[in-house]
Structure formats: structure tokens, C-alpha cells
């Protein structure tokens, strides 16, 4: 620091710094503090509307899913189920379903067959307890069905908000897009707290009790496959699917990211994903990539397969194929 002569002011004496507190200054100070405190209270007033139990000590102290002891996990499942019943009026059968040994899931979708009916997107909602404002609100569905112009696979000119009288429209074809369960998943790489990761069977999951809601994974995803709970999910009791698991379709808290889990609470118990079961044209094929005799491997070995955005290097476990 310099000692520029122009910058040397006369120092204040001790008396100047310690000006005695008079009755007048004290009262002024007290009045100002009162106004300040009142202002602060007024500013924080919305916090009074917080629902009781929205921030609990148990949840603050909870560890990451992969560090939980089995008994802790059971306790957490019970408390989550109780809270869901209290808040949404339906007691879920909430479990933790582990990956099966020797299984890596893959999904293939036949673009020649898809007619753009969006039944898969609706079935996804019915299965996975996403928030919705009304029956037509499929914004939180994990599947976005794109309508593309014949002649190219050009996403830039596609629309997800098509609404014709009937489908398929001439000159159009349809491409449902959901999480591609990438082998080189950008979303899990960027998460600052490892709240999202690939399971042993290749499914990318989110620990909704660990996610901090920074949404970096959404920025990283090249497939627009992740959804964020901008508000507490709105669900009517009759819309709730009570068959729930911790890492997939349990009702999410506010402020966390969610995504397609290949319906792991179904598929890890030998069933098909909800979107496959509902598909009226049989465009969807699901199975074990490690089983050489599986239908999915037959498709990959015998059909013309297209990988969405292969150039970004994500190596999806989701494939598109054509009949001829």
C-alpha cells in the first residue's frame, strides 16, 4: 500500500471514535433497530406458510442412498410412505427394488411402426406418479413424442406439440424420445453431489432425497429427458399408482429432478415397462442386452438401427430401428 501524502488525513482521537452514547443517539439507534427487525420479519413472512414437515431433521441428516444401511433404508421407506399417505391420501406399497444379476437393459423402438398416438406418454404418467394439472397435461411425462417431416431425421423442424384430428398424418412420421440410459451419461458426470448414477443394470437413477436441484444434469442432457419439480407435485388420489419404489416412481418432493427409469420397479421383477405394454402397434422392444437370445439382441443384429445423436458420444442403450 502506498503512502501518498495526499491521502494522509488527520487521525481521529480516541474520543472522536468513541463518541459517548447519549440518550438521544441511544433512542435513535433503538428506533432504527426496531424498524430493521420489523422489516426483516415482514420480509421472511412467507416462511410461515411452509407446510409442517417440509424440512425435517431426519431428512437433513439422511445419507446418500448408496451409503444407507438396510435398516436405515427400511425406516426411511416407512416414513416416506406415511408422509405420502398423509399428503396425498393413498398409502403406497413403497419398496426398494435392486438390480438383477447378469442383466443390462436395452430398449429399441420401431420408427416404421410408431403412429404418434402418444399412448406411451400417457401410460408413463399413469405409471410414474408425475405431477399433472389436468388429464391432458403430459408436460412431466418422461416421453416426448416428436412429429417429424418425412424426408429427413431433422429434430430442428420437429414438433412435440402436434395436435391433429387423427394420427398418423400423411407426410409425417413420429419419434418418441425418452431417457436413452447412456453408457457415457453426461448427466451423471456433471452432478455435483452424485445424486444421479448408473445402476448395475445400466439404468440411470436419481436419489430424490439427495438431489439439491441445481439442474446441471438437465443442461447436460442431449435428449431433454429430465424433468424438474418446479412445485410440489399435484396428484389426485385416483391418479396415484401405489406400486412404488424408492429410486423410480415414488411421489417426488418439490425441487428435485426426475427421469425415466425404464420402470425399474416393474422391469426388475420381470415385467415390461408401462410404455411398451400400452403401445398399440408393437413398436417397442425391451430386453436384456447380455442375453444373446433376447428379442432386443435379435433386433440389434438384424435390423437397420439408428442411434439418436450418435455424434455427441453418449452411447445410448436406447435404439431406433426400421422395418425394411
Amino acid at each position: 500500500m502506498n503512502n501518498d501524502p495526499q491521502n494522509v488525513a488527520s487521525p481521529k482521537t480516541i474520543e472522536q471514535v468513541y463518541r459517548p452514547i447519549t440518550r438521544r443517539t441511544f433512542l435513535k439507534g433503538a428506533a432504527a433497530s426496531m424498524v430493521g427487525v420489523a422489516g426483516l420479519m415482514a420480509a421472511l413472512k412467507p416462511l410461515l406458510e411452509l407446510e409442517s414437515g417440509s424440512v425435517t431433521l431426519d431428512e437433513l441428516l439422511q445419507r446418500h442412498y448408496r451409503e444407507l444401511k438396510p435398516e436405515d433404508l427400511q425406516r426411511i421407506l416407512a416414513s416416506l410412505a406415511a408422509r405420502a399417505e398423509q399428503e396425498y391420501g393413498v398409502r403406497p406399497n413403497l419398496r426398494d427394488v435392486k438390480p438383477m444379476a447378469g442383466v443390462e437393459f436395452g430398449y429399441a423402438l420401431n420408427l416404421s411402426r410408431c403412429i404418434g398416438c402418444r399412448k406411451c406418454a400417457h401410460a408413463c404418467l399413469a405409471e410414474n406418479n408425475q405431477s399433472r394439472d389436468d388429464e391432458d397435461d403430459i408436460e412431466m411425462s418422461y416421453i416426448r413424442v416428436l412429429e417429424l417431416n418425412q424426408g429427413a431425421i431433422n429434430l430442428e423442424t420437429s414438433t412435440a406439440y402436434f395436435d391433429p384430428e387423427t394420427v398418423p398424418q400423411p407426410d409425417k412420421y413420429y419419434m418418441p424420445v425418452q431417457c436413452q440410459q447412456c453408457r457415457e451419461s453426461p448427466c451423471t458426470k456433471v452432478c455435483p453431489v452424485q445424486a444421479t448414477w448408473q445402476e448395475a443394470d445400466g439404468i440411470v437413477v436419481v436419489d430424490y432425497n439427495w438431489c439439491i436441484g441445481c439442474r446441471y444434469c438437465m443442461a447436460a442432457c442431449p435428449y431433454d429427458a429430465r424433468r424438474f419439480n418446479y412445485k410440489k407435485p399435484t396428484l389426485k388420489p385416483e391418479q396415484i399408482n401405489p406400486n412404488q419404489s424408492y429410486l423410480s416412481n415414488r411421489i417426488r418432493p418439490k425441487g428435485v429432478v426426475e427421469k425415466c427409469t425404464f420402470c425399474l420397479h416393474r422391469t426388475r421383477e420381470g415385467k415390461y415397462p408401462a410404455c411398451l405394454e400400452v403401445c398399440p402397434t408393437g413398436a417397442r422392444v425391451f430386453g436384456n442386452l447380455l442375453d444373446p437370445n433376447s428379442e432386443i439382441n435379435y433386433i440389434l443384429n438384424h435390423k437397420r438401427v439408428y442411434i439418436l445423436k450418435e455424434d455427441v458420444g453418449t452411447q445410448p442403450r436406447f435404439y431406433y430401428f426400421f422395418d425394411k
Partner: protein
Amino acid sequence: MRDYLTFLFRVWRLSWQGSVKYYAWMTALTVLVLVGLHAWARQFVDGLEVTGMTNQVSWGAYIANFTFLVGVAAAAVMLVIPAYVYRKEHMHAVVIFGELLAIAVIVMCLLFVMVDLGRPDRFHHMIPPFGVFNFPSSILSWDVIVLNGYLLLNLHIAGYLLYCRYRGRQPTRRFYIPFVFLSIAWAVSIHTVTAFLYVGLAGRSYWHHPLVPARFLASAFVAGPALMILAFQIIHRTTKYFIGAQPITTLRMIMTVAMIINMFLLFSELFTEFYSPTQHAAAAHYLYFGLHGHQGLVPWIWTAMGLDAIGLVLLITPAGRRMLWLNVACVTCFVGIWIEKGMGLIIPGFVPSPLGQIVEYLPTRNETLVCLGIWALGALMFTWMLRVAIPIMNGSLRANPELVTITKST
């Protein structure tokens, strides 16, 4: 220890002494901070629904302001380098203000990240041993480290030098010079890492572009010095602290060079995007000309371009040597870069979405109030730090006032 408590007490007393203007300014800022806090409390209760963000545009004004401000904080290095590397005596009179500004701005950056979190109550998940820190894989975890590190470095350097001066001691070089040099490299790192947050995402072609970090630094070294030139004049006029023309001349030179580089990089970017437009140019097209009838950002970016151009012309012509025109250039450059590096960089990263859908974004009233509150808090912190630092710097606040004659002669 007792001396230090006395020091804190004096600082406390000093903070409450000031002119009517000082009180009016601080009261106005406090009101804005409280308004912002109120808006944030509303957001905490209702969720990020009260912002304009969507699944498609999942980052908005908060992250835009954060990105811009990291640059302003990093620009403090443009006072440190001339002062310590080139040993320009005149910069030593002002370098402390750059460091104090960096402290205030980094706190703003951290707040902008905090208000963007969906679950601020789980912030500790990032802090080992309570959490799981995804280091080194996640660039966001790098950013947490470099930002907090930069904050600590500047707190240490500024705090140590000011306290030494208050005690009338000569600072011990080895207690601060190594940190000063570390802070130079660190300043570059905070902005580089922040740029890598975006550049690292292969799925967003608008960001996945090696020029982005270079442009980040160039534009930061315009916006930061611009703010400091304005701040120095205010300090010079409103306090008993003399700041000569020399530091401002040095900063003007830095700003001019940085602005020329910034505009050159911008030109290179525009050429690449538009000479052979690929599908990847859709975001740039949306930003500059609109896409499929959606033009939300077009007026903004052209305002920014206009402000940048005015600033550049004023800086490179003799007009910039006149104080008035230099001030105009500082304001236009600061605002221009705030737009192009905030909204102009973040939003087109999401529009069109990776699946080609166009969902436009506009900040809501609540979101804007939160932003305003954080800006007001930054101004409040910086004013307060100056209120305390300047009497220490010019010698009117001393541990032992009676010894001042001795200090002066040494």
C-alpha cells in the same frame, strides 16, 4: 486478541457514522435487500415455480447474473497485476478496492447459485464429510472450490493489509505476497472453470465451443475495470481519499484492449455460425434474428451489440480521454456485456431445446426482485467495506492515533 476486539468495535461504530446521503443510500439498499429476501422466501415456500424457468429452459436470470458476476470478480486481477507484477506505484493506492470489490461480488455469485437451487436446505450435500462431493468429475464441484478459494484469498489479503495499516505496522511480505500471486492465477481460474461449466456440455452446441472461455475472460476484463473506473470516481468525490488520474488511465487501457479482443472473438463466432449455417447455428439464429417466429431475445442482443459498439468507439477514439465520454463508455460496456454474457449466453443454450422445441423464457417479477435484492446486497457490502477501509487507508482510523506522526515518518 483484545486489540482485535477493539478494532472490530471501532469498525462497528464507524459503520454507523456518516452523512445524510450515506444513511439514505444504505437505507435504500437495505429496503431492496429486504424486498429481495421476501421474494426469495416466497420462492422457498412455493418452489421455483415462481420463476419463469421450465423443463426446457432450466436455467435463467439467476445463472445469467452469476456468470456475468464471476467475470467482474475475476477482473480485480487487473488491478493486482499492474500493482504487484509491474510494480506500478500508483496502482497500490487502489488495489485494495479491487480486492474488496471481488469479495462483495463473489458473495453475490454464491448467493445467485444458492437461490437457483431447488433444495437449498440440502446445500450441505456438497460439503464433505456431510455430503458426497463429485470431484473431479463435475465441473460444478470445481467451481465451488475455486469460488470459495478466491473469496478466502481476497478476504485474507485485504483483511491482513488493512489490519496492519490500522495497527501502524509494516505488513510482513511473506504473509501476503505469496497469496497475492496465487490470487492472480486463481482469478483466471474462477472464470475459466465457470466457462468450462458450459463448454463441457457436448449436448448444447451453442456452448460447446472453444472460444467461450477466451471470450469470458476478454469480456470480464472490460466489465470489471468499467465498474472500477466508475467506483473510483465516486470514492474520489465522496470520501477523503485521493485517487489520481493514473489508475484510471491504466484501467482505460486494459478495458480498450480487452474490448477489442472481445469484439474480435465475437466477430469470429458470428462468422463461424452464419457463413456456413449448420443445424447447430439454430441457437445463434434464435438469439440474433429469431427462429420460427420466436424473437424473445432479439431486441436484447441488438441493444447489447449497440451498447458494445458505442463503448468500443468511445474507447478507441480520443473521446475516451475525456472523463465524461469515458464514463459513458464504462456504462455502455458494463450493461452491454451484462446482457450478452448473461441472458445472451445462457438462454440460447436452451432454445431451441435439444429436441428442437422452442420454449421462450422471461424472468418473472418474483425472480427479478430476488436478483435486485442480491445486487443491492452487493452494493451494500461494497459500500460498507469502503466505509471502513477508507478511514484506515487515509489514516483517520488508527489503533494508536497519538503514534501517527511516527508512522508517517517511517
